[in-house]
């Protein structure tokens, strides 16, 4: 049963031993706990220690993002504050709630609001990929369901980073799973949760890099719609009942919050197997139906999901301002034999906690019964600002909310950043262009991911207005997803994202700018209005030692600079700072990842664009500023065996004008097709547009440009646009008028032939068959998913 831990007597070594593998707190934090109980004149219960460890876990409280930060000897504003300040300064008129609720909320149309949240589930996915990915999806859906007084989930997104599927077995560190297995199982997990719950999964990407072999990055996002008048986070009042609904509590998912805050070691997979939960999408679906009905009837005062930290986190946070008294023996269990602290911190899935006024209890119970959803009153909100948990009459936890939520010793963290030494290779011009082009298309970070997408139901809910893959053969990728969530209406939601871990290894500032620019450009390529688009950040970083923290500091600066320059605020975000693998003889830092997600609203879905070429003979223009020599981190370099140093530096002075101009052109109906440039550069972008149109293209590389750089430069925020009018002589003029004031270059035209023809100074450099390119582009994932 409940044990008392004699913490008051412990020396430092004993404190650390107590923390190891279980609490994941550092010595200073352990001492703060010791001090609290010395002052209280008693020792803590196991339940109390678990509550504190969970509440203070990096996963839940984001210590690093809130820490006082000394960068290269100078104090800078804490990371989270920087992001929040930028959002406050932008003061976007459509933002209804930022950083305070389970997701960020912006205004939609006709009295509706839309919300978005993106989460990581790296640690569980590393040791049990199917369960980890499933519960990642389930958890982020509940974040949406628990926004305001309850939202309906309308979309799911997934972004993964793995080591290449053909990584040799012996290269995988001890205790880690092979990427071929991880990739297949993670995809299966996302598939089975989203499909069964009826959430369209329609935006995502997969990135490969050798250094993810110790731990994958698994990012899952969700978006929702809710009535604007019920979109603010609710607050429980003293006397309100704490109602838990949904699944039962079991021993699955013990220590999820704390373990995922630790580094990965060769022991993680054995010691922390129970930290992974089991997903049950049907339970979550019926719970969602019940919540929507209860919300519509005005019966929900406040709602939050039971995610990391279980009841401890949900009730501890919900009751932070009031206090809460919980009778733990009331919690419905999957099976008997759980210790009270296990019930308290279990992260069993598909549970949510609601604050309900006593007079509404009967009605809400009846709704839950109607949907076969179990609902149990676990306790009530009080006014004493204490977190009191009893189990069969015995007090197992009695903590001061003030200490619990504000007793964590503030961290002062040191960061330093030095430009890595990288070198720029001197590459000769390629000889066999066609083969090179095919190799670029077949690179893991360029190749088609269609076999994955086909396993996700992206059309459920009947809202899709721009699918992940379209075009004549249904196999050409689009840049973003467009949804029309209000049946029979044209108002649309746009969702996109961007990330490029490789660039962060060269310079996290420009790598992060790239990610944000890519997210915005993807949305705009589909027709989004940059003035009505907002952002979500996800930092997946190695354990914050001085060097990694220095890199993180630069990444946050990039986000802030991007937000200020474009006026797109970050309204939700999450960090996961445990991407380090450590054993006695091996330390592996997983490449830092910043994933930026973008979502926004559009008044008319018919004024948008897809990426597939529409007709032969159209003029093609390249819109956006790029310096083709900035080839660092490109697929082209990678194929030659180099990383390089001179990476793409997105120009924040130009980018906002480019985004605005492309949006205007699409909204005015002047654009037949639009695709943004990313991995694989202009060449990959063009090929994909050709695949979609079932037609070829001719490209004229300007005199003086290095043709390989011109074709394969990957600067984000640049677009290839197929124009509706102005073929032939007038082409250049039409483009100039349309894109006045922004960098714009006519680069060629679409062709009826199934070929891409590349010329320079009137001479043909090479030509390549679309079939060859397409085969190379499809091969890698067909090999994995067959």
């Amino acid at each position, binding site marked *: 049963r409940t044990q008392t831990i004699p913490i008051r007597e412990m020396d430092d070594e004993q404190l650390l031993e107590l923390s190891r593998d279980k609490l994941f707190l550092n010595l200073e934090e352990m001492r703060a706990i010791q001090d609290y109980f010395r002052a209280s004149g008693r020792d803590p219960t196991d339940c109390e220690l678990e509550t504190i460890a969970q509440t203070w876990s990096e996963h839940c409280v984001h210590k690093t993002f809130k820490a006082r930060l000394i960068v290269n000897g100078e104090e800078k504003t804490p990371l989270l504050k920087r992001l929040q300040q930028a959002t406050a300064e932008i003061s976007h008129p459509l933002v209804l709630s930022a950083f305070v609720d389970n997701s960020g909320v912006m205004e939609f149309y006709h009295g509706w609001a839309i919300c978005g949240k993106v989460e990581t589930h790296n640690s569980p996915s590393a040791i049990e990929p199917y369960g980890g990915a499933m519960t990642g999806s389930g958890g982020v859906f509940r974040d949406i369901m628990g926004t305001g007084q309850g939202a309906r989930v309308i979309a799911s997104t997934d972004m993964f980073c793995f080591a290449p599927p053909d990584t040799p077995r012996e290269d995988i560190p001890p205790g880690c799973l092979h990427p071929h297995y991880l990739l297949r199982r993670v995809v299966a997990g996302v*598939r089975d949760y989203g*499909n*069964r*719950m*009826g959430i369209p999964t329609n935006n995502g990407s997969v990135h490969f890099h050798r250094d993810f072999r110790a731990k994958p990055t698994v990012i899952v996002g969700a978006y929702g719609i809710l009535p604007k008048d019920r979109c603010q986070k609710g607050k429980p009042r003293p006397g309100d009942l704490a109602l838990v609904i949904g699944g039962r509590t079991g021993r699955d998912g013990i220590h999820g919050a704390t373990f995922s805050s630790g580094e990965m070691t060769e022991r993680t997979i054995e010691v922390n197997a129970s930290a992974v939960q089991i997903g*049950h*999408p*049907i339970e979550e*679906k*019926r719970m969602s*139906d019940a919540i929507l009905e209860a919300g519509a009837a005005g019966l929900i005062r406040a709602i939050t999901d039971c995610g990391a930290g279980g009841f401890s986190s949900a009730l501890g946070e919900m009751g932070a301002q009031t206090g809460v008294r919980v009778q733990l023996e009331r919690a419905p269990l999957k099976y008997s034999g759980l210790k009270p602290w296990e019930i308290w911190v279990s992260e069993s899935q598909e549970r949510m906690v609601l604050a309900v006024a006593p007079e509404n209890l009967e009605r809400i119970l009846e709704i839950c*019964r*109607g*949907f*076969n959803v179990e609902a149990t009153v676990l306790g009530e909100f009080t006014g004493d600002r204490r977190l009191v948990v009893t189990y069969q009459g015995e007090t197992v936890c009695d903590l001061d909310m003030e200490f619990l939520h504000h007793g964590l010793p503030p961290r002062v963290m040191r960061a330093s950043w030095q430009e890595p030494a990288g070198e720029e290779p001197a590459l000769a011009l390629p000889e066999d262009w066609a083969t090179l082009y095919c190799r670029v298309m077949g690179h893991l970070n360029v190749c088609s991911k269609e076999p994955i*997408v*086909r*396993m*996700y*139901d*992206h*059309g*459920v*809910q*009947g*809202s*899709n*207005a721009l*699918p992940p*893959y*379209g*075009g*004549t053969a*249904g196999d050409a990728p689009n840049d973003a997803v467009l949804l*029309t969530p209000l*049946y*029979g209406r*044209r108002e649309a939601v746009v969702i996109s994202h961007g990330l490029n871990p490789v660039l962060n290894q060269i310079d996290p500032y420009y790598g992060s700018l790239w990610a944000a620019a890519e997210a915005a450009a993807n949305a705009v390529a589909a027709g989004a209005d940059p003035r009505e688009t907002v952002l979500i950040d996800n930092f997946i970083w190695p354990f914050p030692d001085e060097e990694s923290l220095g890199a993180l500091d630069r990444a946050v600066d990039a986000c802030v600079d991007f937000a200020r320059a474009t006026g797109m605020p970050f309204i939700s975000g999450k960090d996961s700072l445990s991407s380090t693998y450590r054993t006695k003889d091996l330390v592996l830092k997983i490449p830092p990842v910043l994933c930026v997600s973008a979502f926004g609203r559009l008044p008319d*879905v*018919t004024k948008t*664009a*897809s990426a*597939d070429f*529409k007709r032969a003979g159209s003029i093609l223009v390249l819109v956006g500023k790029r310096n083709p020599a900035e080839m660092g981190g490109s697929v082209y370099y990678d194929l030659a065996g180099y990383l390089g140093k001179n990476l793409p530096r997105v120009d924040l002075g130009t980018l906002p004008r480019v985004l605005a101009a492309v949006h205007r052109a699409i909204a005015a109906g002047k654009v037949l097709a639009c695709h943004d440039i990313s991995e694989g550069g202009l060449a990959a972008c063009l090929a994909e547009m050709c695949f979609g149109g079932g037609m070829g293209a001719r490209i004229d590389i300007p005199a003086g440009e290095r043709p390989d750089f011109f074709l394969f430069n990957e600067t984000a925020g640049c677009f290839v646009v197929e124009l509706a009018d102005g073929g032939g002589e007038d082409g250049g003029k039409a483009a100039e008028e349309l894109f006045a004031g922004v960098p714009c270059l006519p680069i060629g035209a679409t062709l009826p032939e199934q070929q891409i023809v590349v010329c320079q100074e009137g001479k043909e450099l090479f030509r390549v068959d679309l079939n060859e390119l397409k085969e190379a582009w499809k091969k890698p994932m067909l090999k994995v998913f067959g």
Partner: protein
Amino acid sequence: MKPKVCVLRTDGTNCDLETFAAFEKAGGDCRLVHINRLRNKEEKLADYQILAIPGGFSYGDDVHAGKILAVELTSFLQEQLVEFLAAGKPILGICNGFQVLVRTGILPDRKIGEVSAALVGNDSGRFECRWVTLFTENAPCIFTEGLAGKCLNLPVAHAEGKFYAGPETLKKIAGQVVFRYAGENGRPTQDYPLNPNGSLNAIAGLCDPTGLVLGLMPHPERFVEHTQHPNWRRRDFVGEPHGLAIFRNAVRYVKNA
């Protein structure tokens, strides 16, 4: 009077809202009805003119796709169903709803409890979400009046959609086949991915001998607006989105009955 449509839902139903929207657009007066309400007698099937069983994963598709809901319908609601059928009212089962109708025996033979066909795992061994072309046969189906000989574009999204029946049954139901997976030329095909699951005789949809009950794996409710088509920007649509006629026909049939 708008015909009243019962859009049935239960644990794991997830295409209910778009099915609702499609019937509303077609002129129906829809209610989302949880099966618990029918079992508790808070609602009666007899109060409705059309029954729609939407797609999803009813009860997680545990045991077999659609099996548990089929058992629930035939065990607890058999009388109401028999009465509904006897009254000559239309029933539409989409995707999981089709699987349910086959598992109850209502399709293909309109005989509750006599299961003579199945929708089994796709030949590809996985969930497939893609658009397909359907050739509409000249079947006595009230949902496809005026569509015979035409090709429809609709999406499929399922893991268990391969129509399977013994040779005799296949022969017997030949005249009840409503939709077949086809190439763009309209010719039925066994080629993947045009036939996305390997269905025997390319069967994608089927009616009962009276033509009042239709079950199909593709999702007509996902193509009742032009912008739902993946390539709506490429084509100039004349006429309606391809899924809408199925709902309109049901509503019209009830109005004229």
